[in-house]
């Protein structure tokens, strides 16, 4: 399971970086979104991965997952969601105002 989660994080990071280095705003936004997914998974995994244990603290439970990373992930998801919404609106406005979706706001010379 660790290998699976780790490679999922790695693949998403890699794809995110690749897309973020594109010159058009849409792939960059998608890349940023992938990047945040990878990070959410990584924060979640920082509390160690567990299967079949009690989800909440009870006197009889000897082992339970760390609840703090889950709270951190929740915060990170909310912030990333808001930021993604903002960057999409900004990209749309840039496209309307500048007439191009290039990240530099102007078409490169051909």
């Amino acid at each position, binding site marked *: 399971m660790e290998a699976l989660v780790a490679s999922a994080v790695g693949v998403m990071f890699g794809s995110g970086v690749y897309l973020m280095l594109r010159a058009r705003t849409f792939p960059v936004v998608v890349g940023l979104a992938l990047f945040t997914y990878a990070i959410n998974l990584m924060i979640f995994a920082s509390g160690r991965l567990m299967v079949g244990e009690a989800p909440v603290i009870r006197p009889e439970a000897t082992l339970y997952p760390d609840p703090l990373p889950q709270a951190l992930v929740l915060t990170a998801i909310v912030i990333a969601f808001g*930021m993604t919404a903002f960057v999409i609106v*900004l990209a749309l406005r840039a496209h309307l105002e500048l007439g191009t979706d290039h990240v530099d706001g102007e078409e490169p010379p051909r």
Partner: protein
Amino acid sequence: MSHWIIAPIVLPALVAALILLLARQSLVVHRALSLASTATVALIAFALVLAAPAGHESYWLGDWPPPFGIVLVLDRLSAVMVATTSVVALASLLYALQGWDEHGKNFHALFQFQLMGLNGAFLTGDLFNLFVFFEVLLIASYGLLLHGGGEARVRAGIHYVIINLTGSSLFLVAVALLYGLTGTLNMADLALKVPELPESDAGLIRAAALLLLAVFSVKAALLPLHFWLPGTYGSAAAPVAALFAIMTKVGAYSILRVFTLIFGAEPGLAAMVALPWLLPAALATLVVGTLGALASRDLRAMTAFLVLASMGTLLAAVGLFTLRGISAALYYIVHSTIATAALFLLAEAVAKERGETRSRLEPAPDLLQPRVIGGLFLAAGVAVVGLPPLSGFIGKLLILEGARPTPAVAWVWAVVLVTSLLAIIAVARAGSVVFWRTLAGERASGVTRAPAGGLAIISVLLALTAAMALLAGPFTAYTDAAAEQLISRDAYIRSVLGAEAVETASSRGW
């Protein structure tokens, strides 16, 4: 435990929400609320500065004991930063009231959220909370940067937003690594646990520390992560750019806090991990910023590059990681924030009086008030480049003095002195083009008189730099004590976690 510590965060947050609720009310209501909140925060900030010498004070949010709950920590450093923020915020808000806030919607709500984020970042004692306040101040700054609209701002906005989102993502990676290694994100608790990590975690903890350095360097515009700054600061509305003068300092503050407390001199796997990187990068930033200022064709762009150069100077002092270096950095942080804010506002006054030529460094008909604005420009230039008698000179002197006992003395002296000379040339050349090489004949259309209120605000800011020079003795006594507080980290840890935590960890001083 005094509740005043949380007031600089809660008050702007509540007022911002109130302004949003009253969105349909007239601008007068918004202005009154915003001004009242900013002025009150300024008063509280100065009360905190006076209260801080008593030592560290930690405030448990919701009364949850650390390391489980979030803590706010007030020490001399955070008090000075909050006070500097409130001075610059008050000046740029008063300047914005001259008409800038009419250029778009929600200026005052965004402004208050920005204030909340800044104060929160300076006061928090929790790494994840620092991330959250970074996001608060960033999203408010995205809105403020775009305030007024226009192609240049949208173009700069895309770069600014994307690089900061990437930076924030890397911050989370570092946070996840640190939590995975130590199981805590409370800074004081991290300071105890990081030095005790086993040898097998060496790679991960160093990676986390250097990732944090990279993230803070993005905010502080440290070379090679500085490319966003000139465009962003050069295109933002004048009062916004003046407020942004404090925003780069958040990065410098975070470096100062995290790399003395958590990754400081306490022997461990990640002790002084920033030392080999920070000073060279800071000196390179200083060189690039100064060259940029020399090459600028516009007064606002030149000011933006001078901000970059001042960040280089500041981080060079931080990068010495000595008591005198940190104390000099604290003096310079306050000085450079106020001086560059004044210069941004002044560039706007110049642009107003030159009509279509704006602040471009080209000959144009004479200004309407050449003597007043020229005089202010002289004072602002003297402050920014660091000539006597204003505070920039004393700041640079303290930094040179701080570098003297360190092995990097030759580099620091050479770079700081040569770039100061180049900065003098850049500012003098800009001044002579704007004020002396005037064209005879009709003024172009669009020339408006710079309002006296705005010029008065600039004068007050410049008077503050003069006051900093006059009161340099008490001021440096305060920053010396603040630097000592930073370096003797035990007091910080003790105030957050209690005395037993420090003794069991058998901490050693610097």
